[in-house]
């Protein structure tokens, strides 16, 4: 494995992301126009009883490895919880109802799975949800798990505010409305909004929705939303691994199917990046896309001047502007009833 990506390699991933998401996102925004009513600037501020702290939850494997959601539940954390869409199902199955759920990826039929897909049987066949480590509950018995998730989301939907990007597939919009969720819209900032011919400006001109920095992925968007719109401080990140635990088979990594199309099998390891995490004394590894996410997030904290509390207890996200803090300590200091056992 290599130890880093250079700037040219990062630029390739950034450009690939734009190419993959811009046009389809614009088309989705056109189709979503009729649903756009409230914006993220209309989101009611959390009740004062919740205090100033928040947890922004991504869906990385540490959620399961560290029993993060169970610990948040058992600690009776009183602060705001902002979840990425991929973490919603795991939250609800464990009795945690997030206050807000953020969704931003414009994929046409994967993202609705996080909300329970009423049309799962008619979707194109692929093994994405059987391989992914974001919500292992969906690795098997897909239809049965999907039906359970539909029921859970329907039961709790009216309590959840969805922070929904204009670019998401309209099936996600309709599913959220079907579940009784309230929607608050925003445009992802994808290029220079001061460029009148740019993609972001076109999105804004069409929708008139406010635009927000994404950080490249849904979990980062959740953290940015909690900081910038909800004005929470501090905001802890959990499940923000941006990488794979030591020993994870390459076949179980998110972009394996794409990498194996281009790399010879005996050189596949060269596509990955090994990263020693000094806070864990463990060497995790990541792929080019997650590495790009990591660089995006480091750029956000550096450029904003904000500090992020990373309570993931796993992964590759550390560096300037990132404080790695045990989750139990964050909850003790910022709003919860501490469980008896310390698990950090």
């Amino acid at each position: 494995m290599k130890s880093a990506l250079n700037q040219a390699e990062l630029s390739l991933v950034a450009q690939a992301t734009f190419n993959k998401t811009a046009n389809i996102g614009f088309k989705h925004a056109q189709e979503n126009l009729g649903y756009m009513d409230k914006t993220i600037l209309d989101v009611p501020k959390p009740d004062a009883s919740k205090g100033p702290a928040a947890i922004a939850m991504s869906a990385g494997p540490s959620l399961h490895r560290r029993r993060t959601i169970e610990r948040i539940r058992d600690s009776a954390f009183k602060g705001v919880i902002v979840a990425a869409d991929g973490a919603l199902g795991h939250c609800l199955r464990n009795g945690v109802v997030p206050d807000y759920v953020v969704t931003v990826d414009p994929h046409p039929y994967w993202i609705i799975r996080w909300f329970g897909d009423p049309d799962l049987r008619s979707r194109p066949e692929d093994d994405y949800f059987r391989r992914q480590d974001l919500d292992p509950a969906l690795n098997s018995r897909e239809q049965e798990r999907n039906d359970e998730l539909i029921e859970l989301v329907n039961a709790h939907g009216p309590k959840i505010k969805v922070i929904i990007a204009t670019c998401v597939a309209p099936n996600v919009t309709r599913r959220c409305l079907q579940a009784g969720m309230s929607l608050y819209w925003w445009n992802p900032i994808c290029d220079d909004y001061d460029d009148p011919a740019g993609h972001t400006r076109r999105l804004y001109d069409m929708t008139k929705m406010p635009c927000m920095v994404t950080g490249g992925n849904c979990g980062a968007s959740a953290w940015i939303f909690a900081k910038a719109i909800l004005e929470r401080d501090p905001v802890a990140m959990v499940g923000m691994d941006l990488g794979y635990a030591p020993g994870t088979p390459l076949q179980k990594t998110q972009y394996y199917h794409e990498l194996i199309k281009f790399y010879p099998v005996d050189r596949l390891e060269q596509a990955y990046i090994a990263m020693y995490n000094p806070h864990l004394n463990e060497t995790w590894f990541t792929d080019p896309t997650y590495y790009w996410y990591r660089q995006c997030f480091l750029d956000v904290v550096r450029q904003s001047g904000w500090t992020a509390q990373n309570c993931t207890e796993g992964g590759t996200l550390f560096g300037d502007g990132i404080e790695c803090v045990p989750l139990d300590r964050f909850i003790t200091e910022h709003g919860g009833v501490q469980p008896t056992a310390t698990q950090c």
Partner: protein
Amino acid sequence: MAKLIGNYKISGQPDERETESTVKKEDTVGDFERKAMARLGGSIAFVMKGKNVVWNGAPPKDGADKS
């Protein structure tokens, strides 16, 4: 003498990095890495301008944008 590969040379061994076959091989590596990364797009594009994380239609401060 056994053939060695890697980032070093042994006396009397030709520098394989200069041979045509190796140059092609290195080009190929770069090529397939480039092709792979061009397919590895993430969830959503990322751009951040200054310290601003939210933009709601305000014109640029220098007034250059007349749209």
